[in-house]
C-alpha cells in the first residue's frame, strides 16, 4: 500500500498545527500583563528595533560571538541547513525537478548544517559548562533536527526515501511548538523587546566602535 498520500496529508496537518500553535503562543504571550510604558523616551524604539535586527546581531556588536567564532559559524550553518532542508522538503512534496547542480548545492548546505548540528550537540554533551544548562529538550530537539537534515540529504540521493523524509518532517513539526524549537518565533519577539528597551533608553543605536576595541 502506498503511504505517501497519507503522509502528505499528515504533513499538511502537522504544518497547520505547528503554525496555529506558534501563532497562538505568540499572541497569548504578548497579551500577558500588557501595559503602557510610562517613562519618557530618551531615544527611538523603532531605531532600536532596527538596530536589534541588523548591527546588533553582528559579531562586531557581540563580544560573546567574537570569542566563540566556531560556535557562531556552526549556529549559522545549522540554521541555514534547516532552511535549505525545508526548501528541499517543498521540492520533494511538489515533485519539482531541479538541475543536478542545484541538488548538489542543497545537499552540501544541508550537510554543512548537519555537521554543525552534530558538533553543537557534541559540545553540549562534552562540556560541563554546557551540560549544567542543558535539558533533555535540548538534546531531543537537536536529534530530531539532525535526523531531518540527514534524511533530507539521503532523500536527495534516493527518491525511495520520501516516506522517511515526510515522517521525520511530521515529527519535527509536531515537536516545534512543544520544545525549545519554539524559539523560531520567540527569537523575533525577543529581539523586538531588546530593540525597544535599549532604543527607548537611548543606548542603541550608538556608535560603539571605540568601546569594543580590545574587548576580545
Amino acid at each position, binding site marked *: 500500500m502506498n503511504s505517501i498520500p497519507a503522509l502528505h496529508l499528515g504533513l499538511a496537518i502537522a504544518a497547520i498545527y505547528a503554525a496555529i500553535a506558534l501563532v497562538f503562543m505568540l499572541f497569548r504571550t504578548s497579551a500577558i500583563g500588557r501595559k503602557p510604558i510610562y517613562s519618557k523616551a530618551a531615544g527611538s524604539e523603532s531605531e532600536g528595533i532596527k538596530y536589534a535586527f541588523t548591527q546588533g546581531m553582528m559579531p562586531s556588536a557581540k563580544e560573546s560571538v567574537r570569542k566563540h567564532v566556531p560556535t557562531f559559524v556552526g549556529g549559522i550553518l545549522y540554521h541555514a541547513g534547516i532552511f535549505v532542508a525545508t526548501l528541499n522538503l517543498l521540492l520533494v512534496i511538489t515533485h519539482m525537478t531541479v538541475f543536478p547542480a542545484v541538488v548538489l548545492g542543497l545537499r552540501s548546505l544541508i550537510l554543512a548544517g548537519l555537521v554543525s548540528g552534530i558538533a553543537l550537540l557534541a559540545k553540549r554533551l562534552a562540556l560541563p559548562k554546557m551540560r549544567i544548562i542543558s535539558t533533555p529538550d535540548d538534546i531531543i530537539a537537536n536529534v530530531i533536527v539532525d535526523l531531518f537534515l540527514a534524511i533530507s540529504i539521503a532523500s536527495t540521493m534516493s527518491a525511495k526515501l520520501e516516506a522517511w523524509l515526510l515522517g521525520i518532517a511530521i515529527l519535527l513539526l509536531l515537536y516545534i511548538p512543544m520544545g525549545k524549537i519554539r*524559539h523560531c518565533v520567540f527569537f523575533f519577539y525577543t529581539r523586538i523587546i531588546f530593540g525597544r528597551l535599549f532604543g527607548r533608553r537611548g543606548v542603541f543605536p550608538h556608535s560603539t566602535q571605540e568601546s569594543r576595541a580590545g574587548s576580545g
Partner: protein
Amino acid sequence: MTKPGDVSLKQNGPSDTPDLARGLRAFGKTVDGRLAASLNACVHCGLCADSCHYFLANGDLKAQPAFKVALVQSVFKRYHTSLGRRLPVLTGGRDLDAAMVQEWIDSLFGLCSLCSRCTLNCTVGLDISRIVRAGRSTLAAMKLVPSELQATVDTAIQTGNNMGISKAEWLETAEWLNEELQKELGSKGTMLPIDRQGANVLYAVNPREVKFFPLSLMAAARIFHAAGESWTFSSDYYDVTNYGLFNGDDKAAGLISSRLQESVQKLKCRMLILGECGHGFAANRWEAPEWLAKTPEFEIKSVVQLLADYIRQGRIKLDRSKNTKRVTLHDPCNLVRMGGVIEEQRFILSHAVTDFVEMYPNRENNFCCGGGGGQLSMTRYAKRRLEAGKIKAEQIRKTGAKIVATPCHNCVDQLGELNKEYKLGVEIKTIAEIVSDALVLQQNS
C-alpha cells in the same frame, strides 16, 4: 558576618518553611509578555558565560548567566507551559521547593550584580537581568531576601534614606557644609539651600555622601553656585538610591521613588536631578514611572547630564590644567548600559582633565565593578564580590591611570575596595569632584 552558604531560610523568614504557594503566586505575577518571551526563547547556547565577571573571575559554572536563567526558566516551564506541566523531566521543569529556593537565593542574589552585560551578549537578546530580578521578586514575596539587603530597603522606607540618617543630622551636616563653603567662597548667601520653594533643581544624593563623603556634596554645591543654578535639597527626602530595584520588591521600590517625586512637586521644582548613582538613575528615571504607572510631570536627569549642559552653555568654566594626573573612567552599568547616559561623562572629562584614557571595553560594553545589584549591602557575599571585581581591577591597571572617575557612589565604594584588594594605587573620584577641582570661579560668582 554570614557566609555565602549560610543563606538559610531560617535567617530570613519567620519560619523554617518558605511559603511556596505565596512564592508561586508572586512568580506568576512577574510573568508578563516580556518575561514569558525571554523564558521561551533561551536556547541554552551558553555564549553569555564569558560576558559575566563572576564567571570570568573563577569559572564557577553556576555563575554563568544561562544557569541563572535556567533556574528561573525551570520553574516557569514547570508551572507555565503545557509540556512542562505534563512532562517536566523533558523540559527541565522543576518544582519550586525548598531546595530550589535555596539555589535561587544563592545564585540570583549571590552571583549576580544585575549589570545586564549578558543581555547585550545574548545571541537571542534575552533580558537576563529582568529574569534574575523576577526570581528576586519571587523570593521577596516569600520574605527570603538576604537580610542585609532587606534591611537597607526597610531603613529607606522607615527613615527616608537607606542609612537611617535623622533629619536633624542631615540639617546639621548641611549647615556645617554651608558655613565651610561661605568661608571658602567669601559669600554670605546660602550655599546649600534646603526646601527652597520654586527652585529649578531638586538635587537628590546618595546618603553615603552625607555620612562619609561631604566633600562630594561640597563639590556639587560649588558647581551649582558657579553655574548660578537655582537649586535645593529636600529636608525630608533626598536619597537618590533605591534598593527596591535590587531586592525585587516593586511596591517598596515604588514607594521610595514616589517620595522623591512628591518632594519635587511639594517644592514646585522643575527638574529632579539625580546625583551620581547608577542604580538611582535607572530606578528613578526608567523604572519608577512603571512602578508608579505614571509619567512624571517634570524632567528627570542625571547630574552628569546637567554638568555637561553647564559646560555646553558656558555656565561654568573649567581649567583642565588643574587636573593633570592620568584619569580613566568606569561606566556604571545602570547609568550607561541600562541608562543611556554614555557620552556626557566623557564630554565633561574632556574639558576637566588633561590626560584621559579609556579602559577597554567601555561604554555599554564595560564590565561591572561588582558593586551593583545590592552586592555592597550583602556582606555575606563580600568575598565573591571582591573576586568578581578582579576583571575591573585588571581593566584599570592596564590604563596606567592614577585616578578612576566614576559617576556612581556604589561604584566608588566597590572600586575603593578593589583598589586595596588588588593594590591598584589609584584615587577614586566622582565626576563632580573632578569638575569641582577644575572649576574656575569668577570674581563675582
